[in-house]
């Protein structure tokens, strides 16, 4: 519903500058007035421009309505007029913290339609960079979640680790956030000399520093008091809303596309999926930290198994997907990312629809926020991992 309609419904008869007509509610002896508070769109707690209109009774939230669309950039329409190489460059940007996974999805979708064989080495390099991207993403959420709860230090530690990884990825791809490294049929150019050694070193450093995060945040009593039992998501509700990723794993469901529908070479290596028990904020954070550990294990396995050989193949001058459609899902760091690609045989797709994990994760927020206090609302918002660019595309 549009911004104006929402306002009319919740706050009938008010325009900017008018007096607010308060509705007196309350049960028992206390007569309190309900207040409508709009968190966002520009707010430090929301990860981007997400607006949540909360109807509140004192500090308790009675209802919450997320308003999305502030960052709609028309990706799917743009994709209809761009060829696959240009789409790959654009698609980095809808979930900007997981750029590699996004372009990997597009490349895999087109390769699936063309039934193209990708060289071995390219597959393993894709896996390596996808896992580094996953660690980058999770580190960012660790930092931002801690700072929303008031712990200002883990943000800096997380970014220190991110700088190391971003430098590593920059040496191979040229970019720190938007990689444009994948190609239909492989990757653009091979890794530079010394990359694998540096990758091993950084993996060892991060593994050591992970213990710091566990001590500083997970083990902190104040953090536990703020997050244990807060925002518990039931398994059935999560599945009904289509929540995926660490938010779903926290409820106990180990649904991970790398395991259930292996793409690349994930079927040949060990992929650990950490799960939680209660689905509360603490478990979601716990899954996040342990997913980093799982990704480090995968990176070690990829280092050992990396073959040599070519990394791309000769492409026709213009890459055209044959007529037909395909659906491909991969494990974005935030959850399950799906691409529905329908082609009419030309170089631009007929329709490219993205099933983004953040969209479904945001959908479950009203359910979680009902009945909680405002500081808990912030804790919940930060723990349901989403990126607004992913929600709105």
């Amino acid at each position: 519903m549009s911004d104006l309609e929402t306002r009319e419904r919740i706050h009938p008869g008010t325009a900017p500058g008018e007096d607010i007509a308060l509705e007196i509610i309350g049960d028992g002896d206390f007569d309190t007035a309900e207040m409508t508070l709009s968190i966002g769109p520009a707010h430090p707690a929301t990860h981007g421009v997400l607006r949540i209109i909360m109807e509140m009774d004192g500090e308790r939230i009675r209802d919450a309505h997320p308003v999305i669309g502030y960052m709609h950039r028309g990706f799917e329409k743009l994709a209809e007029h761009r060829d696959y190489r240009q789409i790959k460059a654009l698609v980095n940007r809808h979930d900007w913290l997981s750029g590699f996974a996004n372009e990997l999805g597009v490349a895999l979708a087109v390769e699936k339609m063309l039934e193209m064989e990708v060289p071995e080495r390219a597959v393993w390099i894709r896996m390596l960079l996808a896992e580094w991207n996953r660690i980058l993403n999770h580190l960012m959420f660790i930092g931002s979640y801690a700072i929303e709860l008031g712990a200002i230090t883990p943000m800096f530690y997380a970014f220190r680790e991110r700088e190391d990884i971003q430098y590593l990825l920059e040496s191979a791809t040229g970019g720190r956030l938007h990689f444009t490294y994948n190609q239909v049929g492989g990757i653009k150019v091979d890794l530079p000399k010394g990359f694998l050694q540096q990758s091993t070193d950084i993996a060892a450093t991060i593994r050591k520093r992970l213990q710091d995060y566990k001590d500083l945040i997970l083990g902190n009593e104040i953090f536990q008091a703020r997050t244990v039992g807060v925002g518990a998501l039931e398994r059935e509700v999560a599945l009904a809303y289509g929540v995926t990723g660490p938010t779903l794993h926290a409820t106990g469901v180990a649904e991970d596309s790398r395991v259930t529908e292996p793409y690349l070479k994930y079927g040949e290596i060990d992929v650990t999926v950490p799960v939680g028990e209660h689905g509360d904020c603490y478990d979601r954070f716990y899954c996040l930290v342990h997913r980093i550990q799982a990704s480090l294990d995968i990176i070690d396995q990829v280092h050992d198994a990396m073959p040599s050989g070519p990394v791309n193949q000769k492409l026709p001058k213009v890459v055209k997907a044959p007529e037909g459609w395909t659906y491909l899902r991969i494990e974005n760091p935030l959850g399950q990312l799906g691409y529905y690609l329908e082609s009419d045989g030309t170089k631009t797709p007929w329709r490219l629809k993205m099933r983004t994990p953040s969209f479904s994760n945001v959908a479950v927020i009203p359910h979680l926020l009902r009945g909680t206090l405002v500081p808990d609302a912030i804790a919940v918002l930060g723990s349901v991992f989403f990126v607004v660019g992913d929600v709105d595309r």
Partner: protein
Amino acid sequence: MSAVLSQLAVTPSILDIDNFWGAVGLKILLILPLFFVVPLVVGYMEHKVMAHQQDRLGPMEAGPHGTLQLVADGIKFIQKEDIIPRAADRWVFAMAPGVALVPAILIFFVLPVAPEVWAEDLELGLFYALGISSISVIGILMGGWASANKFSLFGGVRAAAQLIAYELPLILAAAAVAIQAESLSLVDIVNSQATFMLGNTEINLWFVFPQALGFALFYVASLAELSRPPFDMPIADSELVFGYMTEYSGIKFAMFLLTEYGGMVSMSALMTVLYLGGWQIVPGVPLPGCDGAGGIFDCGALGILIGGGVTLGKIFLLTFIMVWLRVTYPRLREDQLQKFSWTVMVPLALINIGVVAVGKVAF
């Protein structure tokens, strides 16, 4: 005038010269640096300590190693435009920072800094200090209300609830000290710490040793009084932008910040006086050049300087710990805060008083 004052004062300081206005001038000269310079140094320390604990450097550009950063901040605040929201209550909005700031200055009047260096030694010094520090709450509430901003209102109401809740443990812990020192005068408390012997032995101890629990309670309660993390729900900058200070800009904002840092210094100074033996270097060791009781009074110039240095050192140590706690911990939720105060701290404070009273009578 001076007759009235001399009845309230107990121990004259060296600033109590014969000329009345001269004495007033000297005392103002003592208070102003305490209030304007020491908090700035504490602020610089906070910048640098926070930065290094977060693996970064902190201010480096303004002055060598960023020493003039807060001076630059002050100049910046002075030249900012003073914005008052249209829907705000103008007078209340304008007065709120003043109401918050002035009591924070007034508390320094009774704090003894060095041997015979204080503004006034009131008989009810401790009572005055704790009472005056509570007036700042009104300023915070005024700021939250008059801002015409829902987030500020949240912040103001949270602050009021929190500060009222934590006044009790503060006062109860201080009461235990008053019981042990048998006086409410701050100078007398310092004096009694210098002469306090454990049991029947000759070991001189500060009050922090027998009243470690009371010290911890006072420290935590003062953190909550100052809205410092982990008790900074009223400011909670990831939720409420900046709580009651959101709509303030320029000098008014600077006044609120100065209240916070000045409060840090005054609370630390109060804790130094109540628990850490004031300007005594180590328990049992007299200051050089001091002849008076306990080796901390009737000192020469050297003793005064060393004593002042010792007090400042203790203040910096306590504020360092405040910064350290800020950097490390997330913040407690409002209801957890309240529960902690009422169900944990108040009973502990009462137990502390009981133990001290019994100890006082028995030993």
